[in-house]
Structure formats: C-alpha cells, structure tokens
C-alpha cells in the first residue's frame, strides 16, 4: 500500500503528465489547422443577421473538414473558425479583428457584418497584411480605400436597382410616379439613393423620398402622406422587422400600387412566412437566390447541392447572407489550395487572380477588391414563393402587376 504522501505525489505526477501530453497533442493539432477569424455581432440588434452569417461559415467549415480539410502542398489542414462577438458595436469590431490577429493567431480573416463595420475593421487587417474576405459589404466606400488585402462578394448597390428599374420601365408603362421610403441606416439608405438615381435616369418622377428613424414603431402618418400622392411604384428599404410593419400598415390603410418593392425583407424566408398573403407580388432584389443554377468549381459544386446541404443542416432555406458567407470560405479554400501555401501574400495574389464559377455565381474581383462578375437576381413573391425575373439565364416567370 502506498503512503498517503506518495499517493498524492503520484496523483500530481499523473496530472502533470496528462497536462504535458495534452499540450503536446494540442500543439500537434494547432500545426495542422488553419484558423479563420470571424468578428460578428452575435448579440445586439444585428444578431439575427450575424447568426445567419455564422451558419454560412459553419456549413463551409463542416464540409471542408468532412472532405479531409484544405490541401496545402500535398498536406491536409483542418479548418477552424474563431468567432468573436463584437456586440453590434463597430469600434469593438475593430478591436476584435486586432485581437484575432495578434492574440488568437488566425491565418485569415472574414470581414465584419455590413458595410460600416467591414470598412472599419479592414484597416486592421490591412495593417497586418492579413487577406480578408467580406461577405456582406456592398457599399463602394468600403473598397475605394486603396486596400490590397480586402475582397468582397457583394456587387455595388446600383447593380440591384438598375435592372429592377429597367424591368419595370419595360413591362409596366403606366408607372410614372415613385415614392421612396428608406430606413436611416447605411445600407438601406444607400440603396434608396441608388433607386432615386436610377428612377430619375429612367424618366420616372420621384414624388416622395424620406427616411425613417431606426426603431420606428409606427408608419401611419408617413403612409397616409404617400397614399395621398398616389404613386404607382412604392419602394421601401429596411430590415425584416421594419418591412413587416410597413407592409401591415399599408394593408391597414388600403394602399394599393402597381409595383411595391421591398429591400431586403422578401429575400428572407421568415419575412415571406410572417407577411403571408400580403407578401404576394412584392418585388425585390438580392445578391444571390436559391433558385439560381450554377455549376461551380468550389467545394459545394452546384447551387442545388449547396441548398440541399444547407437544408439538411439547418432545416431552412438559405438566403443571400448565408450563401455569401459560405462562398467566402470556399473562395479562401480555392485560393489557399492554388497558392499551395499559407503565406499571406501568396494567398492574397491568388484571391486577386480568381476567375472561377462557384455555386454563388461567377467570381472575379475588380482592382479595388469588390466582385464585379455577378448579376444580382431580381425576383417577385408569387404564390408565397420567390420567382426570379432577372437575369434571363435563370428567369422563372414574368412580372405580375398590382399589389393590394
């Protein structure tokens, strides 16, 4: 029988041994892992969008690891995504990006959510020369900073409004007056301003253009005013909550128009379900749509396969945010495999050179880092389902007029 002291000693020795072995194992693991940093607003007002983006990253990581990992010069590396919650607070997004690079030793970065935070955080990744892919930044102000290490998978905002206006001009000649109502927020306001420009360029009269404050609980006064101007096209921007509320109040006030466009709500399945009958014939545009049919060279392959994998994992329909996040992962994988190295500059150069079809669409980045190869789809809700109207290659139906 062992003496109590030696018993204690052997216990400590065993613990120490385990710790050493454990450390060794984790060191060995760390060497075979590529770490991707993803600063996201996982709590706070932007949480719903961030959680979706996280689903996209996770799906890619899962698929990449299932296939054995990313192959770099004949050696397979597992994918690990490091998340930091910046609580919907942009200055914290910048800190989070810096912390990931300097303390968590991530190899590559995903951009923060939306244009504003992605732009702010990109200064850090540029400083440390870490290639960064922004999944949800569309405003050109993000890309005109002359940065070399920042790339993004959303085309500029006007690529959404211009095709839409052209379709309406051609197929709804009675549309003469447009009313625009925008959420006073970076992206919703920017897209409304593009709409204003493209309406005027197409000879339409903009009879109303106003912004509403973030968190507005009631739109009745605004809508009464719009109704009194009798526009044939009503264009409203905001997020799911705002647009559901506006749509409900439009029905309440019996506002009818030939065309009603809402960006970005109808791109989300939860909007269509919540709006029910009132979603019928709403038009919208987004950067990607599950109805697209691309045969990609990335890990997901075809759009159908991506949609299927997404449905199997999350039991819901993917939207453009989730798809964009997943394609960012897939693009990193392509660039790293082509570079055959984890060297920042080599991977950066491969990203800049990319000219490839993915499940998300053709991907090629312009000199400023923003994608310039996509034709964002225009669609309409018909029979509680989104029907693609543009581009012609994936067109599923004709524009229907009249929103009651």
């Amino acid at each position: 029988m062992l003496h109590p002291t030696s018993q204690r000693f052997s216990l400590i020795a065993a613990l120490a041994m385990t710790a050493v072995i454990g450390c060794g194992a984790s060191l060995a693991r760390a060497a075979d892992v590529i770490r991707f940093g993803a600063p996201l607003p996982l709590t706070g007002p932007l949480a719903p969008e961030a959680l979706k983006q996280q689903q996209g990253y996770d799906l890619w990581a899962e698929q990449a690891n299932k296939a054995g990992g990313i192959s770099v010069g004949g050696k397979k590396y597992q994918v690990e995504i490091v998340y930091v919650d910046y609580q919907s607070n942009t200055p914290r997004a910048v800190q989070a990006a810096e912390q990931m690079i300097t303390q968590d030793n991530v190899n590559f970065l995903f951009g923060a959510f939306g244009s504003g935070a992605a732009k702010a955080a990109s200064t850090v990744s540029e400083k440390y020369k870490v290639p960064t892919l922004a999944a949800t930044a569309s405003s050109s102000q993000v890309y005109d900073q002359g940065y070399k290490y920042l790339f993004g998978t959303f085309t500029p905002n006007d690529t959404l409004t211009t095709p839409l206006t052209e379709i309406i001009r051609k197929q709804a000649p009675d549309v003469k007056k447009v009313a625009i109502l925008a959420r006073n927020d970076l992206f919703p306001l920017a897209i409304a301003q593009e709409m204003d420009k493209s309406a005027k360029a197409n000879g339409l009269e903009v009879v109303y253009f106003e912004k509403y404050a973030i968190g507005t609980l009631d739109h009745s006064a605004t809508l009464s005013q719009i109704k009194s101007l009798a526009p044939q096209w009503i264009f409203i921007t905001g997020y799911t909550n705002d647009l559901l509320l506006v749509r409900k109040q439009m029905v309440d006030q019996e506002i009818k128009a030939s065309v009603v466009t809402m960006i970005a709500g109808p791109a989300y399945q939860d909007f269509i379900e919540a709006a029910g009958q009132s979603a019928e014939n709403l038009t919208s545009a987004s950067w990607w749509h599950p109805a697209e049919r691309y045969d990609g060279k990335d890990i997901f392959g075809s759009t159908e396969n991506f949609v299927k994998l997404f449905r199997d994992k999350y039991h819901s329909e993917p939207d453009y945010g989730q798809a964009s996040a997943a394609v960012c992962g897939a693009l990193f994988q392509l660039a790293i495999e082509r570079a055959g190295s984890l060297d920042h500059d080599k991977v950066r150069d491969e990203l800049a050179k990319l000219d490839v079809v993915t499940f998300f669409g053709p991907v090629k980045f312009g000199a400023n880092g923003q994608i310039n190869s996509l034709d964002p789809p225009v669609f309409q809700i018909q029979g509680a389902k989104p029907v693609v109207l543009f581009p012609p290659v994936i067109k599923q139906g004709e524009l229907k007029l009249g929103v009651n």
Partner: protein
Amino acid sequence: MLTAQLLINALVLGCLYACIAIGFSLVWGVLNVINLIHGSFIVLGAYLAFGLYQWLAIPPWYAWVVAAPLFFIVGYGLQRLLLNRVITAPVLVTLTLTFGLDLILNNAMIYAFKADYRKLTLRPPLGSLSLFGVVVPVDRLIATGLALALTGVLYWLLRRSRVGRAIVAVRLDRDAAVLMGVNVKSIYATAFGLGAALAGCAGVLMALIFPISALTSSSYLGKAFVVCVLGGLGSVSGALAGGLLLALVEGIGSATIGPSHATTLSFALLIVFLIVRPQGLLGRKGFE
C-alpha cells in the same frame, strides 16, 4: 382629407401607446420602481398570443383571459421574492435589478424563440373601416377600446376597491399605511403583479399589430418611458393623455418635417416637459 386621416391615425396610435405605458406608469407611480423588464413582458405577452393562436387556434381576445392571471402571478412572485428585498434602497438599485432581470428574460426569449420575426395573422384578417375616405384599421380600434377600458378599470380599482385604496394609501404615505395595518409587502407585490398583467395584456394586443421579436422590447420600453413623463406619474389617466400627446406630435412631425425627425421631435418635447412641467400633463406634484 389628409389632415383628418392624420388626426385619426394619431388618435388610435395614442391609445396604443397608452396600452403600452399604463402598467409601467402604475409601477413607477406606486413603487417608485422604473421597471425595465416591462418591454420584455409585453413581448412575452405577444409570444403567448402568437402561440395560443398558432397551435390551439385561440384568438387573441380569449388570450387575455390566460395572459392577465399568468402575468399577475409572475409579477407578484417577482416582487415578493426579489424586488421587495431592495425596494427601500435608492432608485438606482431597483433600476439595476430590473435591468438585469430584463437581460435574462430577453436573452432567454431569443434563445427559446430565436431572433426571427413572427407575425400573428388572423384568418380572415380584421381589415379596416372606411368612412368618407378616412381609413381606420379594426385591430387599432380594438386597441383604442382596450386602452379606454383598462384606464377605466384601473381607475375604478384604485378608487373603489379595498386593494386599490390600500395601494393609493401606500403611495401617499408608506409609514402611515403600515400604522393603519396595511400589509405593505403584499400591496407592493399586488401593484407589481397588476403592472405585469397590464403589460401581458398589452402584449397580446401588440401581437395583432406589430411583428413579434424579443428585439422589439426596447422600443416598447422607450415609448412607455416617454408617455409616462409626458402624461405624468401617479395619475391613471396620465398614460392616456401622454400617449395621445406623443402620437399627435409624432404624426404632425412626420408629416411636416419628415419621418426621420419625428422621434427627435418627441424627445425634444420630453426634455421641455422635464424642464417646464416635470409632473407631466396630469401628474401630481411630488410624483415626478
């Protein structure tokens, strides 16, 4: 015609605001507790109505029967077990406590129901009434009726019932009420329970009108706060007066200087009231 429509809009919206604020006003006025969990109670009430309609096909007007006692019990328990322990502490302590409780409830709701927006859509929908070109949605008319009814019931309760008179007595002079044999702890819990029940009922109604998500709780709380300051604390009809004033200012502001400045205008009004008339429109001195 537009002016008439704007006025009607403001009138029904004002009653909606009164519904949101009435429980908040009661708790603030009686207990001197700024109850930050109020907004989350409203959202929880909305989820309750949504669930009852979606899965048991119970329409919202019956959901009140479930919501009122349920929320009363929750509120009563919360006050009895937690808030009563710090009720005599400075107002910042109760503020912090309800802030913490709100964080817990709000995040629990996000965890349980996810952050997706839901909408209670009645089949068939209630629709709108149209008279001489002025349109009024029926669900908002119901809200107007409910706001008036709740104000009436609360007024009656505080003036005529034994419990109500005890609540008023505690509010006027806590120590004297104790000497008269009033069980102060129980009265506090009753008042808080009433506040919670009013929030739950308001939530059931909001489910008909607004999209439902835990993320909207701060909007409700913000409105309740402004309405109480404008209308005045310690007065039952204050919530109604404050709600109407706020809706009118927002409506006129939105139509004249644009919707993005309507909120600015309402908060400017709030500051003016705090400086010029801190007791609010119908409040009594000493409760500001």
